C-alpha cells in the first residue's frame, strides 16, 4: 500500500475536531507535518534518555591525551545498546582559564571491565530524564575520575571540537556578558559498545566547569 496525502495550500479554515482530512502535502510532494512535543520527548517518556552531570563543585577538563580524564561515558562491550549524545553543556565555576577549546575524544576497544586500558572509572548513576522513572542506564558514566593506561591515553583521538573557546579570563576582574556553552548533536554521533567517549580540552583548561552530557540509549 502506498500512502499519499494531497497537495494543497494550507487551509485558511481550521479543521473540525473529530473529522478526518486528507493529510497535507507540499509542492514537492512532501508530507507537511507539525511537531507535537520536543524532539526527544518520546525517548524521554519511554525512559531512554539519561543525564550525566558533574558534582556542582565541577571538574577541570584536562587535555584530551591525558591519562587522567574527568568526564566521560563508557559504552562497555556487551551493553546491548548504542549511546547517542543529545547535548553537551559546560558551565563556568571558577578559575583563570588557559586559552583553548573544549572537544570530545574517544577510544575504541575499551572492553567491559577495569584493568587495561581503563584502569579506573568511578561510575555514578546518571539521572533518567523521566525524573524518578524510566530505565536504568546501560552505559557507564563517570563525572570525575577516569584513568587510562599510558598506551591507551596516547591513542585517544578527537571526535570533534565543541566549537567553544576560552581566553584567559579571571572571574574576579573580568567584566563580560553572560554566555552559553552548549552543543546539540542532533543524532550525528553514535557510540557503539566497546567505546569510551569523553569531554576534554585541547590544552589543560585550568577552568573548573560543571559539565552535563545528555544521551539516549538505542537498541543495536
Amino acid at each position, binding site marked *: 500500500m502506498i*500512502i499519499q496525502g494531497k497537495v494543497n495550500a*494550507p487551509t485558511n479554515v481550521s*479543521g473540525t475536531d473529530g473529522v478526518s482530512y486528507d493529510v497535507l502535502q507540499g509542492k514537492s510532494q512532501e508530507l507537511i507535518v*507539525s511537531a507535537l512535543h520536543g524532539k526527544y520527548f518520546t525517548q524521554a517518556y519511554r525512559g531512554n534518555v539519561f543525564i550525566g552531570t558533574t558534582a556542582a563543585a565541577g571538574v577541570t577538563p584536562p587535555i584530551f591525551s591525558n591519562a587522567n580524564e574527568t568526564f566521560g561515558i563508557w559504552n562497555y562491550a556487551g551493553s546491548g545498546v548504542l549511546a547517542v549524545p543529545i547535548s553537551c553543556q559546560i558551565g563556568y565555576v571558577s578559575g583563570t582559564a588557559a586559552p583553548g577549546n573544549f572537544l570530545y575524544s574517544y577510544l575504541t576497544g575499551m572492553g567491559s571491565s577495569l584493568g587495561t586500558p581503563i584502569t579506573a572509572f568511578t561510575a555514578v548513576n546518571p539521572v533518567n530524564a523521566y525524573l524518578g522513572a524510566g530505565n536504568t542506564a546501560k552505559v557507564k558514566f563517570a563525572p570525575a575520575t577516569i584513568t587510562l593506561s599510558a598506551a591507551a591515553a596516547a591513542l585517544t583521538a578527537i571526535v570533534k*571540537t565543541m566549537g567553544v573557546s576560552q581566553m*584567559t579570563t579571571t572571574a574576579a576582574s573580568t567584566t563580560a556578558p553572560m554566555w552559553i556553552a552548549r552543543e546539540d548533536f*542532533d543524532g550525528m554521533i553514535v557510540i557503539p559498545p566497546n567505546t569510551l567517549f569523553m569531554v576534554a580540552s585541547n590544552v589543560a583548561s585550568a577552568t573548573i566547569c560543571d559539565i552535563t552530557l545528555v544521551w539516549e540509549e538505542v537498541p543495536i
Partner: protein
Amino acid sequence: MIIQGQVRNPNTSVATDGVSYDALQGKQGELIVSDLHGKYFTQSYRGNLFVMNVTATAIPVTTTTAPTFALWNPQGNMKLANIVKLSLGYVVTTSTAGNILWSYQLGVGANVGTAAPITAYAAGTATNLNIGSGVVTTMKPGIATITLTAAGTVLRATGFSQLVTTPATAYLPWVTWNDEPDGTLIVPPGCIIYLTASVATASTYTCSMVWEEVPL
C-alpha cells in the same frame, strides 16, 4: 490510497501500547508528528556521516591558493557531500580582526596534477561518526598543504568573527563557533570547499567539519 488522520486535540490520556489509533492531524490538515531521534541519527547509524579534524591551523585570506582545511568531492564520485556542521575552537596566538568564510571551486576534477586545478593535496582523515563503522568516505578531506592553481570564490560567511585578541591579556566570555548549514550547503562531484578568512588569521584553530554522503 490517501492517508488521513483525524483533527482533534492531543489525547488527555496516554495511548496503549500495541493498539492502533487514527493519526493526529492539526487544524490545517498537517500530520502531527514527534521525532524519535536527532535529525542526523539515521544517517549516522547507517554509516553515512563523517567528521574530519585538524588540531591546529591558521586560516588563509579569501584570495589564497593554499587552503588549510578543505573537503574535495572528486569528479566521478557518485555521492554528494551535504555539510552538516562546522565547529572551530581557538588554539593559540593573538588574532587578527576579521571573519571566517566558506570558499569553493568547481571543476577541480578528481586528481592532483601538474596542470590541474589542484596541484598538491595533503590528505586528512575522515572518521565515521558511527564510531568504528566500516563504511569509509568517498570524499577527500584535505589539510595543509593544499595548492590550488587559481583562487576560488567566496560562497558565504560562517558568521564567526573576531577582533584583535591577545590570549594572555584578553578577558572575554567563552565563544561558541558552530555553523550548521542544515541542508543549504551541498558539495557536488568535481568541487572543493574550504575555509578562508577576510584577513589571514594569525590565530590557529581546532577545526571540525561534519558531512553526510548522499547518492547523486
